[in-house]
């Protein structure tokens, strides 16, 4: 029986170490999308190309800790421009936006305002 104890303990230790490493790694990774663990990254971008409320391309003006100025990015503002729904965004505008790192995939979203409302608000 004794001959099994050391291998079993070793395997358990390796599993424990691996789980700690994985947890640490993923926590760090997902934290890239969170400001101080609480808010998503708030960045400033300059719109280069926009179509139907969706920014097709933009240039980072102030990307905080993770995005360099001048870096290109794609940001969908069809959901969540809040008070500024009524605003018409144009190429060349500098706006505030949220940075979602590539390792996060949006799976579901909803808003009390619809795209029809956005159109109405822009009138």
């Amino acid at each position, binding site marked *: 029986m004794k001959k099994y104890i050391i291998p079993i303990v070793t395997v358990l230790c390796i599993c424990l170490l691996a789980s700690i490493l994985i947890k640490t790694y993923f926590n760090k990774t997902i934290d890239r999308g969170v400001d101080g663990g609480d808010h998503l990254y708030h960045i400033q971008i300059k719109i280069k190309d926009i179509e139907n409320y969706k920014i097709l391309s933009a240039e980072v003006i102030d990307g905080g800790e993770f995005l360099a100025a001048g870096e290109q990015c794609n940001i969908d503002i069809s959901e969540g421009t809040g008070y500024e729904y009524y605003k018409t965004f144009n190429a060349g505008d500098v706006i505030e936006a*949220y940075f979602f790192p590539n390792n*996060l995939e949006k799976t579901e979203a909803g808003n009390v305002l619809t795209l029809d409302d956005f159109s109405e608000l822009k009138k």
Partner: protein
Amino acid sequence: MKRLKKIESYIEEKTGHYACTVQALYICSELLGVADYSKVKTDYMNIWKATGTTIIDTESGINYGSTPTSNVGTGFVKHLKDNKKKTGVTSTQKTSAPFSFFTSAVKKRHVSTLSFSVKGSGSGHSVAVEGYATYKHKSSGKKLNVLLVADGWKAQVRYLNFNAAKYDRMTGTKWSGITVQ
């Protein structure tokens, strides 16, 4: 037509008052299409009174108020009934409200508010919820739940990480019997 641009500085200038819960409810009234932009002060102060908001501080001539969380739901119902002739509206309030409390409201185009405090700071805030989003970490599958809120301070939506550890006493209030117009 909804304008959704009544930010803190505008409200303070128009009314001489500011309270985050009243602000959140005023934004809800905008979303519901019942705000009267020719009577901003009247609307704002009606919500102030209906929710039992009291002045806790005065700075530079602006009265800052605090609202008992328990008054949020019933106070807004009273405002809608007494001042906007909207009957049949009911409120639901839940402490430690789950994310689904808000997603179900958004799906029905019902307005809702989130009141919460920040651990260790002794301060709290209330915001109007206008949307939500769920993100999945591609590798781990871990979910990130986000509420899209109007924080009442600035003219832009805020993305609030619903699962952030430092938020406390997350209380949700939502209203049925009236939908976003």
